[in-house]
């Protein structure tokens, strides 16, 4: 699995034929990397450009006069900080709750044999395919009705964003965690049991830490899908703008006559950078997590 081993084996096997080809491949890879990263570079660059340069018909790929004006505009005029915290809160609750619930469910379907187990698994798989967007209509009415009874989770509240995302991230999370829970040897459970550990003690003190890398990989997906949400925020937060999330705040800068591109790019930067940091931090776990999940 290790990079070094693979590298050496490959070089030893065909040293002379590979080299010129590999240099070309490496140059190509660097070019591709630059092209893939360019939109993000342009976003950050435009966020720091002064207004005149952003709205210039001769755009330059650099700026000599970096300015924080666009960011100032974003945070002062639009109460962006509040939207940011709302987004963070919604995504945080969804990530933690779906990780815990999915962990329990994945344990149930991998370490127990019971009736309807296969049926349930197929249902989780099918649930992943449900077009979330199609459910906006019934969910809208559900949230409206629930809101009458329990004000905390009805329309116009953050709860109306948390609950649907929890439901939509669970099937995938369970499906993905299954592989990780399965990978923990049965013998470990027997040993723990012989040593007198109860089932819940085994669950939380032995299994949970072992599955944690998998939980991280899974959480990335639920975080992304929740942080990305645009449709529910647009449909469910109708009048209570103080409960809006980042995507809606971003749209404020689109204007019928002339878009405030500097503001849009600054807001986009603020919305993207936390996810980027999160991704880079969990990068290794994500890659190995995906490997683990698909290998099963």
């Amino acid at each position: 699995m290790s990079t070094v081993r693979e590298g050496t084996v490959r070089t030893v096997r065909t040293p002379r034929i590979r080299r010129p080809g590999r240099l070309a491949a490496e140059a190509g890879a660097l070019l591709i990397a630059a092209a893939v990263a360019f939109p993000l570079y342009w976003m950050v660059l435009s966020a720091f450009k002064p207004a005149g340069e952003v709205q210039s018909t001769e755009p330059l790929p650099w700026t000599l006069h970096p300015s924080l004006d666009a960011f100032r505009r974003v945070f002062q005029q639009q109460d962006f900080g509040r939207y940011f915290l709302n987004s963070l809160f919604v995504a945080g609750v969804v990530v933690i709750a779906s990780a815990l619930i999915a962990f329990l469910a994945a344990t149930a379907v991998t370490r127990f044999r019971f009736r309807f187990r296969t049926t349930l698994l197929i249902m989780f798989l099918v649930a992943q395919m449900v077009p979330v967007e199609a459910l906006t209509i019934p969910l809208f009415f559900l949230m409206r009705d629930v809101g009458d009874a329990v004000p905390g989770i009805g329309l116009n509240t953050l709860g109306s964003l948390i609950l649907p995302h929890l439901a939509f991230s669970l099937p995938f999370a369970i499906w993905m965690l299954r592989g990780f829970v399965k990978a923990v040897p049965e013998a470990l459970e027997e040993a723990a049991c012989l040593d007198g550990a109860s089932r819940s003690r085994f669950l939380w003190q032995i299994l949970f830490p072992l599955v944690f890398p998998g939980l991280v990989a899974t959480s990335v997906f639920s975080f992304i899908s929740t942080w990305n949400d645009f449709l529910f925020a647009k449909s469910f937060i109708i009048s209570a703008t103080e409960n809006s999330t980042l995507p809606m705040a971003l749209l404020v800068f689109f204007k019928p006559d002339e878009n405030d591109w500097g503001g849009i790019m600054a807001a986009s930067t603020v919305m993207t950078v936390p996810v980027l940091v999160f991704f880079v931090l969990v990068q290794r776990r994500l890659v190995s997590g995906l490997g683990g999940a698909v290998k099963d």
Partner: protein
Amino acid sequence: MTLTVKEARAGGGRTPLTGARRVRPPSRRGSRWTPWLYLAPALVVLGGLLVYPIYQLGLISFLEYTQAQVSGGEPTSFQGLANYAELFGDGQFWQVLLATVVFAAACVVCTLAVGCSFAVLLTRIRAVPRLALMLAALGAWATPAITGSTVWVFLFDPDFGPVNRVLGLGDFSWTYGRYSAFALVLLEVVWCSFPFVMVTVYAGIRAIPEEVLEAAALDGASQWRIWRSVMAPMLRPILVVVTIQSVIWDFKVFTQIYVMTNGGGIAGQNLVLNVYAYQKAFASSQYSLGSAIGIVMLLILLAVTLVYLRLLRRQGEEL
């Protein structure tokens, strides 16, 4: 120690037969309800927020449900298949359906082609360029759909975008024409979804034991033969997973179309089913028609799922 164990047991707490459990330690017989206890939170959430709404979606698609019924001004009335008849009798629906299928197929093919070829490229290069490509891809992956959409629209802006300058296109507007607008959205979709394919396929290639490839090479197999007869079969389960995931994601594209083409393009020329359903339901208050479109999407994706399940079965995967 004893205390903590006892506490933990009290927490898990429904088995007074501790003696019996000690005799048969890994027993599953004494815990017939434990799996259901573990499953309960997931089932409650999914039942309430997925199964019930699907039922509601189906129900609304058979009712007359417009603003009058929503506000309670008029009673709801059962319409049978009238909504579906109206939908299927509308030329625009078929046009949108066709556009959705073709657009999604194009996205899937491009995403897979780009993702797989970059994954192979990753295995051929040393650590530094590999890290560069990996980080760039992670960046694209991490970008929220809405910011990706705004940035790509800005890159291709007729007045202020760098792309038209570099390509010498003057003030050509990408979002004005139907096909150029779809092409622009396709580029963005491929940009933000190829990393998943690339990373997954790369992880799959890395998981193939080096010995197997060496054995094939020693037996005199060519690179192409190794790829076709050794690697491709071993990668097939992964390729199935990424293909199905891409089909599902690309078929459901909403944000990109909505933001980049401003709600479905000029005169709805860039509508896909999702956006179409949203416009019908929330912009023109025809909730029944929107729900009928939702049911059509659900059925199409269900068909895809059944194909997926069959493929899994054929690979002999144990569920």
